[in-house]
């Protein structure tokens, strides 16, 4: 018998594992116009995937984990985020 798992049943260690990148799910992606952004943090707050963070006073979107839902663009009070087609440069 060839076993893949050393457990008797489906136990998994719940370590700090990142899931699979989800960038392929996306049709559109967010672009921030930094000139319009006032660092209010609203987009970070509402991003369901938690892929937006503030680094060195600048909002950064980790696109590997962005599913392109567009909530950030919809919620941004300054209209600083626009969703562009994934194919666009």
């Amino acid at each position, binding site marked *: 018998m060839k076993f893949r798992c050393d457990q008797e049943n489906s136990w998994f260690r719940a370590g700090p594992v990142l*899931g699979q990148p989800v960038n392929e799910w996306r049709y559109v992606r967010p672009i921030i116009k930094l000139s319009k952004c006032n660092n209010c943090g609203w987009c970070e707050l509402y991003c369901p995937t938690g892929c937006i963070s503030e680094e060195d006073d600048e909002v950064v979107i980790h696109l590997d984990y962005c599913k392109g839902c567009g909530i950030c663009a919809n919620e941004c009070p300054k209209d600083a985020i626009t969703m562009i087609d994934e194919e666009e440069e």
Partner: protein
Amino acid sequence: MKGVAKRIASHFQEEDLLSAATGMCPGCPAELAARVLFKVLGKNVITFRTPGCQPIFMTRLAGIPCLMTNIASSMTGARRYLHKIGRDDVTCVAFVGDGATADVGFQPLSAAAARGEQLLYICNDNEAYMNTGVQSSSATPQGSWTSTTWVGDSHRGKGNEVKYMPLIMLMHGVSYVATATMGYYEDYVLKVEKAKEAVKHGMAYIHLHTPCSIGWRAPQEKSIEMSRLAVQTNYFPLWEAEDGKLKFTKRIKKPTSLNELIKLQKRFSHINDQELDRLKQTIDKRLALLENLAVE
């Protein structure tokens, strides 16, 4: 920042206990709600989930997958054992759908509430069985299309009113009942904080309204906006009840027209004026009932 605002903000320094990528659909407010939930609750939890949308995202926390038919009893078993070995510090928390709450898992939930089990139960109400393909549940609103309530010559969407779970739970005499939605972020955070405390004395139940862009056939970027509109139209009033005393946490002085919410959702695309009126009447009736019960 001061006071409550500072406390809420402090949660965002906490570690995000969910995986960065989960299998949830794009724009799902439940993913956001769970992320925030565990920032407030911390790691000292055992999570309970059922087959459905929710199991996918709790990969970094101790968890037990349960049957949809008896999630509240499963929580009871773990909670009682933890109590016996002196681990009352561990919170047993469920994050499950409206089907598991209001329908197939209702009997155990009702019994656990009546026994006063110390459980934190969050109902992720997206108003239908979304994970299996948008079948009607007893939380589905009147007139809504679902894959089991079609619009045709003999029927026009779901026939009867919503089974309003939060009030049913209130009548069980549980420690804490609240309605919440991600459109009112800080309100949700405060309610989770209160629930975390209340669970030391009995059951805490949060009814979380989470628009589902797939099942509601609505634009995915609008899910947070819709959850806000649901409150502003009185479609989903925000209230809480500590030890049975009901009070509104958000009063809507000038309600937005229900049409603003309905028109975003293609599941209501067939709705005519008469049907919209009927839905409005149901909503008004519920609000009037809540106002009669409210202490402030």
